[in-house]
């Protein structure tokens, strides 16, 4: 029996999956069981190409799911859009789960058909930054990397000739590498908005490194776990009080760090200088539209206000495209960082957007992507 609110530690019964899994292979086993037992028709997982490259795939092949074990810290793609219009189970970082819920609020995803296996997330890295960092800080040729791990605040790379090198993440970030900016100020590290919240925080003692901590968030989470237990794919046991306390403590530290970094990342800009600041930031825009294309909370489709009423010929002092987006996303932006990641001109769009979205959301005590029943402030007035 599994209940909502349970705190469990578990692992895949398949030794191979357990060993290859990021912690205990539980996530993979749960996803595979959901597919096998017909709970869902498809599963979204990451297909590895190498340490810095992976593509999300939508599959109904259990073997493909079983092959997708492991956490890719340098593949910051958001998976929400892959869940649209399907009956799926998917792994989800907190921001993936937030985007799924925002899409559900806008009628683009049916949550009843979407099983969200949440992954704790301390942050991800941009693949290009990671490669540069390997050369500059680790003195390792990115081609030689065969594995990567995070342990005790250190980022560890393993090379094909068996060497290992660890550097503290703080040190990497001070040198301008490390996690993406949006991850640094993020304060949602445990995906309490998903159906299950899985991670390695709180996995201690004999099980350290070979089990997954799992919090059951709702009925769908219960279903996912019971289904996987029934299929014989996982074994779980209650987490000890100590394990639960450790997990909570690490989370607190990370959340506090996020809040502290937010102040550093968003220094105040005086009223009179802000317009100039935004104009300078946006003047490199080449109008490619990639930031809209990847935005996981945008539910507008191809023909939308930001594009239809925007023309370079207007030669405006500020781009209509960006103005519309800055306003439009102020209640829904989850600061996932996708737009900054893909910008070919390196405009820190997420940071710009957050300067608008964060205060607007806080003022309304609204956090997007947490609960599908929270009405987006823009939809506040409904016909009585």
């Amino acid at each position, binding site marked *: 029996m599994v209940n909502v609110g349970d705190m469990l530690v578990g692992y895949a019964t398949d030794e191979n999956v357990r060993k290859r899994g990021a912690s205990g292979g539980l996530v993979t086993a749960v996803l595979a069981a959901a597919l096998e037992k017909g709970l869902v028709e498809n599963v979204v997982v990451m297909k590895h190409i190498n340490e810095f490259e992976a593509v999300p795939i939508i599959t109904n092949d259990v073997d493909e799911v079983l092959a997708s074990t492991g956490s890719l810290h340098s593949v910051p793609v958001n998976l929400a859009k892959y869940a649209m219009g399907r009956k799926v189970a998917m792994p989800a970082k907190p921001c993936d789960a937030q985007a799924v819920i925002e899409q559900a609020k806008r009628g683009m995803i049916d949550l009843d058909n979407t099983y969200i296996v949440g992954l704790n997330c301390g942050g991800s890295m941009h693949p290009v930054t990671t490669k540069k960092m390997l050369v500059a800080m680790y003195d390792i040729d990115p081609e030689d990397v065969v594995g990567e791990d995070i342990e005790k605040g250190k980022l560890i790379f393993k090379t094909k000739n068996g060497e290992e090198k660890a550097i503290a993440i703080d040190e990497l970030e001070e040198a301008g590498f490390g996690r993406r900016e949006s991850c640094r100020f993020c304060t949602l590290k445990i995906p309490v908005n998903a159906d299950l919240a899985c991670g390695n925080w709180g996995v201690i003692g004999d099980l350290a490194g070979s089990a997954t901590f799992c919090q059951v968030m709702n009925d769908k989470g219960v279903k996912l776990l019971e289904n996987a237990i029934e299929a014989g794919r996982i074994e779980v046991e209650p987490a000890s009080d100590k394990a639960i306390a450790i997990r909570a403590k690490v989370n607190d530290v990370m959340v506090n760090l996020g809040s502290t970094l937010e102040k550093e990342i968003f220094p105040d800009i005086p009223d009179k200088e802000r*317009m100039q600041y935004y104009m300078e930031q946006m003047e490199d825009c080449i109008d490619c539209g990639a930031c809209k294309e990847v935005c996981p909370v945008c539910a507008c489709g191809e023909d939308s206000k930001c594009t239809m009423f925007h023309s370079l010929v207007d030669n405006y*002092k500020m781009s*209509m495209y960006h103005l519309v987006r800055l*306003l439009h996303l*102020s*209640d829904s932006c989850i600061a996932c960082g996708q737009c900054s990641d893909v910008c070919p001109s390196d405009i820190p769009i997420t940071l710009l957007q957050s300067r608008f979205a964060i205060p607007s959301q806080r003022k309304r005590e609204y956090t997007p992507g947490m609960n599908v029943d929270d009405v987006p*402030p823009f939809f*506040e007035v409904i016909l*009585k």
Partner: protein
Amino acid sequence: MAEEGWEPKIVAFCCNWCSYGGADTAGMGRFQQPASTRIIKVMCSGRIDPLHVFNAFLEGADAVLVTGCHIGDCHYVNGNEKTEVKYKFLEEMLQQLGLEPDRLHLNWISASEGERFANFITDVTAKVKELGPSPLKPEGVK
């Protein structure tokens, strides 16, 4: 600073049923007001998309006024309540962008409030005159 003799250009969005009537009444009642305003009539203030406000600024408006019926009087039930929701976001956004708050106003004006309309225009014009031309005004537009 503004050039000598510079007059601000103000775009006022007025709804067909109330604030446009207010502007009319201001004229009929011969209330004095500066000739700074260009009125754009819409059926309901709820039709005013933030996009229209951006457009006005980007085309050279020095201030934009969003006006409509008093809350409860909207001729389309609650169009103006929707206006209010959008307006609040818009107001916060333009302030964050660095545009002076005095360049954007929301006001509910009924068809009989001619004097209120004229006073509103007079006040805003004076404030904007002090601020000078909008930083979003395109080069070459006065």
